[in-house]
């Protein structure tokens, strides 16, 4: 008799823990052929709020680490992913119905993207910061700093899309609440498991699975969220509604970009969009 396989329960990733939705709800995730793959947790408003609390609590420690240290942690995520690449490839093939070669391409790109961003952690300040030659005896420096807690609606492209929107935010010191692709949420939770074992402090990245249209408005109107990245919002009316809600506390907004080619090398924009520039003045004297 053949062995009965042990199936995985996919849960949320909040504050370094893997809770079920407090609502007790789940939804069915099918594979590309329409067969049941798993029940995924269907996050609620309360889960979103818990995730923001976790992200806020993690912000001081994470943004206060040295850039070198953040680079090490992000590189560590790539290392752990590399060791579990077969699992990611299998999940991608099953959930998205793509070929083995294509799955390999996406996993390669996701790992390489993390390595690329890891290298930016201690260079971005040098590239976008400035020493300002003001007309007077002052020492005057401008440096980038993270905005704080950023909510992200991840695009389709269950793994590469998710890594491409989250990595630039955390490498620059923000903490993140991300709503995974509604159609393909399972690799997002597996990525959460990788993060949980990669020296990434709990709460730096929080992954919610469920309905974008249901959860995103709570994050857009949340007064303790500093920015919202709408990259994965495909419904224009919803995107406008979220941008309007984001104005309540003047969140930094990144507008939807559903057609992004995730395999292309990204520029700096995903990092700098959620950075502030701080300028410090001090007199020069004796």
């Amino acid at each position, binding site marked *: 008799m053949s062995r009965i396989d042990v199936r995985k329960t996919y849960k949320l990733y909040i504050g370094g823990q893997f809770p079920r939705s407090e609502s007790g709800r789940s939804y069915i995730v099918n594979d590309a052929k329409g067969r049941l793959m798993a029940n995924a947790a269907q996050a609620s408003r309360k889960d979103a709020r818990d995730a923001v609390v976790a992200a806020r609590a993690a912000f001081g420690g994470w943004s206060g680490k040295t850039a070198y240290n953040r680079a090490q942690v992000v590189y560590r995520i790539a290392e752990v992913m590399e060791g579990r690449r077969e699992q990611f490839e299998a999940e991608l093939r099953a959930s998205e119905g793509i070929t083995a070669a294509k799955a390999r391409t996406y996993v390669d790109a996701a790992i390489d993207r993390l390595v690329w961003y890891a290298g930016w952690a201690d260079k971005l300040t040098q*590239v976008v910061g400035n020493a300002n030659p003001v007309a007077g005896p002052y020492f005057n420096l401008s440096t980038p700093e993270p905005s704080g807690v950023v909510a992200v609606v991840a695009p389709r492209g269950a793994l590469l899309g998710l890594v491409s929107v989250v990595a630039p935010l955390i490498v620059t010191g923000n903490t993140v609440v991300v709503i995974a692709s509604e159609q393909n949420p399972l690799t997002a939770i597996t990525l959460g498991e990788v993060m949980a074992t990669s020296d990434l402090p709990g709460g730096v990245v929080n992954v919610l699975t469920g309905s974008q249209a249901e959860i995103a408005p709570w994050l857009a109107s949340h007064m303790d969220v500093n920015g919202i990245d709408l990259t994965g919002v495909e419904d224009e009316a919803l*995107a406008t509604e979220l941008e309007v809600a984001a104005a309540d*506390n003047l969140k930094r907004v990144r507008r939807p970009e559903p057609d992004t080619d995730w395999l292309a090398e990204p520029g700096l*924009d995903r990092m700098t969009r959620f950075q502030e520039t*701080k*300028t410090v003045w001090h007199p020069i004297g004796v």
Partner: protein
Amino acid sequence: MSTHIFEYAPAPESRAVVDIKPSYGLFINGEFVDGHGTSFKTVNPATEEVLAEVAEATDADVDEAVKAARRAYTRVWSRMSGAERAKYLYRIARIIQERGRELAVLESIDNGKPIKESRDVDIPVVAAHFFYYAGWADKLEYSGYGSTPLGVAGQVIPWNFPLLMLAWKIAPALACGNTVVLKPAETTPLTALLFAEICQQADLPPGVVNIVTGAGDTGRAIVAHPDVDKVAFTGSTEVGKAIARAVAGTDKKVTLELGGKAANIVFDDAPIDQAVEGIVNGIFFNQGHVCCAGSRLLVQESVADEVMARLKRRMSTLRVGDPLDKNTDVGAINSAEQLAKIRELSEIGEAEGAERWSAPCDLPANGYWFAPTVFTGVSQAHRIAREEIFGPVLSVLTFRTPSEAVEKANNTPFGLSAGVWTDKGSRILSMANKLRAGVVWANTFNKFDPTSPFGGYKESGYGREGGRHGLEAYLKGADA
């Protein structure tokens, strides 16, 4: 305590250098035109004298201005080489210097600010902004933001630094190859209209700069115009939020420079006399009509009494009165409406239990005046500690440890600026790291320079003005 050791004789600047017309039109496509709307009056806040009638631009006028800006953008300005654009900006900078005295006097008459500030701060910095951005026009490819302009910029500016805010908006926009439609504030339109004449003197191509006067409706028409590619606003957080909502779902790029409630933090090892000068400069400069004003003084408990005693003594020597008098430190409140707001919030401060003290001074019988005022015994819950008052009103809180100072300083939805006063270099750097504010002044306050980016965190808005960073708002971006 003696308040006056001796009196100065009045030293009024002459008004004769300025020619104020009885009425002004809109500046569209290089010409002054009547417009389709009604007009409103602008008054001298120090005397309540009506200075001029100014046109109120309607939606149709805004549409004409945007069309003129689009034409100038497509046919002339975006096609011109950066080096040629630069020469126009250099010309403008030079004319501002040549007519500096005229501009300073007009600014003080229309705004109420002391002549020594308009003459020594505003106008020189205005000229410096045009010089600085003129030099970028042919060097944009080195900026890191590409060199592709956005198109037509709609710009709405406030009344506290009328010409300086105009320079902050127009100089980088033009250097990057954009054309502009700018609306000055309804209480301070006159220097913007004089700037329009300067554009004519400089032979700036028609339509590159358009100036439409009016109030909130005119501003809304600019923001909502479908052919405006970029919106730049400086003003209240409330209006900033309305603008953010208005542009949602569009392709318009936006920068917002909004309110603040800056903490000015004085440690026990600070050079106290210098700190007191910094406190005074932080809150009483420009009558406290400064978004980055140091309106919350956080003073370490062990030196609080000494700092307060010296601060009150210093405040007693501030000379409040005629903005055109060269001895004046604190001028007139910009409008009756603003004066009412300052009075209301100050009364709430007293009602909530804070202790009010105003510098003894005789205020003129006419005009809008408010004596420099300080509140002690303020708690973080008090409205005067939370809301922007935008007037010469200081709230004082105390702290014991650096971490308590950071906690209190950051305990606000705003994040525009902060001040730190201490002799200890490592403490300055540590505080500068922890304060969530776009500008941190250490052992100084309210310093501005065209090379230096300015702008806020959190609800103080987004984007930076000034410096290399200021170009980003007006270019498509190397990554976009």
